[in-house]
């Protein structure tokens, strides 16, 4: 597996949550993200960004995460909720 530093992983999770790819962590239950959800979120982000869908936080993905961008999420709350309900 490609080596990812803890900082990179934390940054990636924060970024994915911030822009709607992962549900925000629950401050009450301290909900953790599953590896499967994280992989799916990364793939969704990669697809949206026009990258190869590897599901891995590779350099291209991390690079895109560092690209200046709009603050608004790519996946709206309504879309995310609907997708979760469907699952």
């Amino acid at each position: 597996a490609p080596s990812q530093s803890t900082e990179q992983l934390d940054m990636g999770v924060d970024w994915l949550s911030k822009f709607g790819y992962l549900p925000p962590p629950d401050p009450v239950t301290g909900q953790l993200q599953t590896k499967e959800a994280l992989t799916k979120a990364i793939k969704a982000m990669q697809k949206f960004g026009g990258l190869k869908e590897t599901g891995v936080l590779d350099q291209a993905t991390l690079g895109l995460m560092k690209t200046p961008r709009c603050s608004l999420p790519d996946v709206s709350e309504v879309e995310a909720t609907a997708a979760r309900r469907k699952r």
Partner: protein
Amino acid sequence: SPVPQNKWKKRHLSWRVRTFPKDSALLGRDTVRALMYYALKVWSDIAPLNFHEVAGSDADIQIDFTKADHNDGYPFDGPGGTVAHAFFPGERFTAGDTHFDDDEAWTFRSPDSHGMDLFAVAVHEFGHAIGLVHTSAIESIMRPYYQGPVGDPLKYDLPYEDKVRVWQLYGVRDSVSHTHQPGNPSQTAEPPVLLDLPENRSTVLLARDAPDRCTSHFDAVAQIRGEAFFFKGKYFWRLTREKHLVSLRPAQIHRFWRGLPNNLDSVDAVYERPGDHKIVFFKGLKYWVFKDNIVEEGYPRPISDFGLPSEGVDAAFVWLHNDKTYFFKDNHYWRYDDHLRRMDLGYPKDSTLWKGLPPQLDDAMRWSDGSSYFFKGKEYWRVPGSDMEVEAGYPRLIAKDWLLCTEMQSDSPDTEPKSTETRVNVHHHPDHAENGYEVCSCTS
């Protein structure tokens, strides 16, 4: 599961820039407002929306430059990262509000590496402000990632992807063809030249500070495309190749030479570059390069690019004799090779080598008679051909020989042509008048 559409119920939306960038050395307030105006216009050009700027605090779209946490749930994060956001239409009082991160280096008409193009980001954010969400489409301005400058705000055309999405929200504006897709020849004429912001018009019409051509010392003089341009303050006069004054009234530099900073109150020297025929403006330690009358991206730049001293330049002209560019400052002159883009060795030299010329020139230019002309105060000197000596009989009066003034004559901006101007016939063409501007031509 369809996403509910957020859109404005009304079609007339007010806007206001409430706070401006703190470090606005490059982007003055008028420029910021102009960029917002054009970024909104991008959307209202194709959809039945109308935006108008207001002064009060009740604007539908409040625009702010802010930083860090500013209490809206979307804190900014310093340079890079998140750069702006806008609130979707809806019932919230913040609906439509648009925030730009004041920690970013906001730019306009600058290379990508110099910062964040404010117009490009504003078009994207106003897309949100009218209800569009992010898309992954490569061609869309609504991609979430900053993709660099998008070119001239006056010529920007939305990608078809975005047009379709805004038409789905608001319908098509009358006179817009929604069937026009990329690759099809446009069925409509080129968009008209956009007017300046309404608030700028009064200054144009009044022109109280317009100088008197008959008594002025000129800041700069240049031969451009074979015509003569005399610059003074924020204005210039233009003479045809036949030395006919195009108008007795000066034109505003900013209304013709697009892209100079609004706060630029004069220029030091101007010349048309040999080879590519681009036009170079000097002011202080900076210079701008124009392609035709539009400034190139990446300017201003320091005059040290030319190898010039840090005091600026008095005069610049291209000598017909050798196609080299000569710069004058105080008592010195430099010879520059515009084809090789480097200063020739052995310079500066003492300007007294040009016999008969005064020091500290206002400017110089070549003319189609093969001579070079040097200007200072109210006088000018002619140096014929490849000579380096002023012709006998000079200096002469600029106003009399170039600007169609008789001796002792003066005309204020508001003065109609007088009977003393016996050499000038002024023909008014009311059918050419637009927006209250008077258009006339002069023949002698």
